[in-house]
C-alpha cells in the first residue's frame, strides 16, 4: 500500500521520495549507498523531531489517520477464537459497533468496539464509525451477557461521535447513550476501556465507562470535535488548531486531568507504523489490568468504579 502522509509529514515524505527515486534509478548496487544512508538518517531524525512535538491538532489528525489500526486489526492480532455477535434484538444490527467473544491469552472476554471501516466501501457500511441507538443497545446486550457469565469486558473506542440523524433521534439516541453510561457504571464484571483513535464525545463515552481507561499516545478524546467547537465558539470553522489546543484533547492532557489511567506509548509516527508492536503494547496492558481487577471483589470493584467517576470534575466551594 502507498503510504499516506499528513500535511505536517511533508518534509518526511520528500526525503522518502528521494530515497525511492535513488533506489529506482537503476544504478549498479552500492552506487548510492552513502547517499541512501545519509537520507535514511536524515529521515529518522526528522521523524523524531516532528513526531516528538506534535500539536494537539496534529495529534487529532494522526488519531484519524486512514491507516490507523482499528479495533478489528487488534482483534486479528491478539484475540483468539473471535466470534462476532450481531444485533440489539430490537431493531437491527449496527455495523458501526462490533461486538463478540474471544480469548486474550487464556482469558475469555467480551469485546466491544467502534469500527470506522478500513476501506471506502466498509466505511460507508459502517457509517464512518458513527453509531445509531441500536449500536449502543447491542453493546449493552453483550455487556449484560458478559455479566451473566462472569466474563470481563474490553472496549475499544474509536468514533467521531454518535450519529446525528433523524432515525437516531426517533429511536432514542439520548436514551441509548444515557442507559449505557448508567449500566456500565454498575456492571458487576471488570471493564477495561482502550481509546485507540478518536474519542468523539457521547458516542465514545457510551462504550467508554470502565474500571480502567487506557489511551494510546496519539489518540484524542473530547467533548466536541475541534471543528464543531471552532464553529460554535470562534464562529470560524477553520480555527480547528486553536480549538484543539484549548479543548485539551491529548492523552497527556487527559492523564493530567485524571480522566484516564494510563498512556500506552505508540511506535514512532503512530500505531500504523508498526501494528505488531502496537498490538503487543495494548494486549500486555489489557492483561495486566484485568489481572489486577480480577483480584478485587465484585463489591470493591464497583465501589472503586463509582468513586473513580464520582471524583471527576473541578470546582470550588
Amino acid at each position, binding site marked *: 500500500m502507498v503510504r499516506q502522509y499528513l500535511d505536517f509529514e511533508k518534509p518526511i515524505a520528500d526525503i522518502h521520495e528521494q530515497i525511492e527515486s535513488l533506489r529506482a534509478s537503476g544504478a549498479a548496487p552500492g552506487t548510492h549507498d552513502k547517499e541512501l544512508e545519509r537520507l535514511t538518517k536524515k529521515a529518522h531524525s526528522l521523524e523524531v523531531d516532528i513526531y516528538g512535538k506534535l500539536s494537539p491538532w496534529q495529534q487529532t489528525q494522526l488519531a484519524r489517520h486512514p491507516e490507523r489500526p482499528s479495533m478489528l486489526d487488534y482483534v486479528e492480532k491478539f484475540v483468539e477464537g473471535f466470534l462476532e455477535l450481531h444485533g440489539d434484538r430490537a431493531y437491527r444490527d449496527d455495523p458501526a459497533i462490533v461486538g463478540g467473544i474471544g480469548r486474550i491469552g487464556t482469558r475469555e472476554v467480551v469485546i466491544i468496539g467502534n469500527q470506522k471501516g478500513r476501506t471506502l466501501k466498509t466505511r460507508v457500511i459502517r457509517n464512518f464509525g458513527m453509531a445509531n441507538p441500536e449500536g449502543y443497545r447491542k453493546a449493552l446486550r453483550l455487556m449484560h451477557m458478559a455479566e451473566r457469565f462472569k466474563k470481563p469486558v474490553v472496549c475499544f473506542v474509536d468514533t467521531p461521535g454518535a450519529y446525528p440523524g433523524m432515525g437516531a433521534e426517533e429511536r432514542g439516541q*439520548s436514551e441509548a*447513550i444515557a442507559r449505557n453510561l448508567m449500566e456500565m457504571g454498575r456492571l458487576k464484571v471488570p471493564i477495561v476501556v482502550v481509546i485507540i483513535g478518536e474519542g468523539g464525545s457521547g458516542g465514545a463515552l457510551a462504550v467508554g465507562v470502565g474500571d480502567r481507561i487506557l489511551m494510546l499516545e496519539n489518540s484524542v478524546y473530547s467533548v466536541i470535535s475541534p471543528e464543531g467547537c471552532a464553529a460554535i465558539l470562534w464562529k470560524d470553522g477553520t480555527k480547528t488548531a486553536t480549538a484543539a489546543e484549548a479543548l485539551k484533547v491529548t492523552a497527556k492532557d487527559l492523564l493530567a486531568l485524571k480522566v484516564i489511567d494510563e498512556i500506552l506509548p505508540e511506535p514512532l509516527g503512530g500505531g500504523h507504523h508498526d501494528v505488531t508492536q502496537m498490538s503487543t503494547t495494548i494486549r500486555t496492558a489489557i492483561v495486566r489490568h484485568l489481572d489486577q481487577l480480577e483480584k478485587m471483589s465484585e463489591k470493591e470493584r464497583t465501589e472503586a468504579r463509582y468513586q473513580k467517576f464520582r471524583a471527576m470534575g473541578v470546582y470550588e466551594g
Partner: protein
Amino acid sequence: MSWFRQKLRKITASGEDRTEIPEGFWLKCNGCKEIIYRKEVDANSKICPKCNYHFPISVDERVGLICDPHTFKAWGGELKSKDPLVFKDSVRYRDRVKKAQKKTGRNDVMVCGDAAICGRPVVLGIMDFEFMGGSMGSVVGELVTRAAERALKKRVPLILFSASGGARMQEGILSLMQMAKTSVAIARLRENGVPYISVLTDPTFGGVAASFSMLGDVNIAEPGALIGFAGPRVIEQTIKQSLPEGFQRSEFLLEHGMVDMIVDRKTLRDTLGRLVAFFGSTAVAAGH
C-alpha cells in the same frame, strides 16, 4: 419559512438569543403569535391562554408552582466553576461565568434543595437555562450527584428538572465526564430502589439529554419542549434536508416511547404528588 422552522433557528448551544418575556402590559406569544395580556399569562402559570404555549419560567417560579409553600430549602449554591482548562475563545471562560453569575444572581446552572410536594419530602434540582444555556460542567455534575446521594441517604424521591443545551464545552473532557458521573449516581438509586423522576423542559439537548435526564423511573416532558441528542441544525447539516414539523418536540418523544407523559405546567404538581405517593407506598411495602 414556517413558524416552526423559525423557532428552530432560535435553539443555539449558548442559548443567548432565547426569547424572554419582555416587560410591558402586552406580549406576543412564541407559539401562536397572538398579542396577549401579560397579567393573564402570569396568572396562568406563564402559559398562553390561547394556544397552551409554555413560556420559559424562572427557577423561583418553578419552585412556587410545584413545592408546598415555604418547604423549599436550597443547598449547594456555594459551588463555583474553577476553569480547569484556563479556557479562552473570543472571551475568557472565567468572564463568561462571571457575566452569567451577574445576570442570574447564582453561581451556576443547577439549583438544588430539599422540599415537600403534596406533603411528601423530596430532593429537588432545577436547571436555570439563563445561566450559560443550562450547560453542564463540573458544578452541575457534582450537584446532580450530591442530589442523588442525598435522596439515597434520606430514601426520598429525587426530582430533576432539565433545561440545557448540553455539555459545557469550556470545561472540555471534564464536562463530558459529568455525563458518566451523573448517570453512575442515578444507577445507585436504581440499585437501591430510590425513585427518580425526570422532568424535561424546553430545551434539553446533548450531554444532559444523553445522561441523567433520560434516566428517570418516570420521564415527564412539558408540552412543546424541544428535546433531543443532536440539535436540529446539526441534523439538518448532516442529512442535508430540513426537518419535519414537530420533530424533537415532546409530542414526538411521547409517540416514540421516550417519555411517559406530557404534563401541563398547571397539573404538574398534582402529577408529581401522585407519583411520589405511589413510590412512597412501595418503599414502605419493601420495608425501607
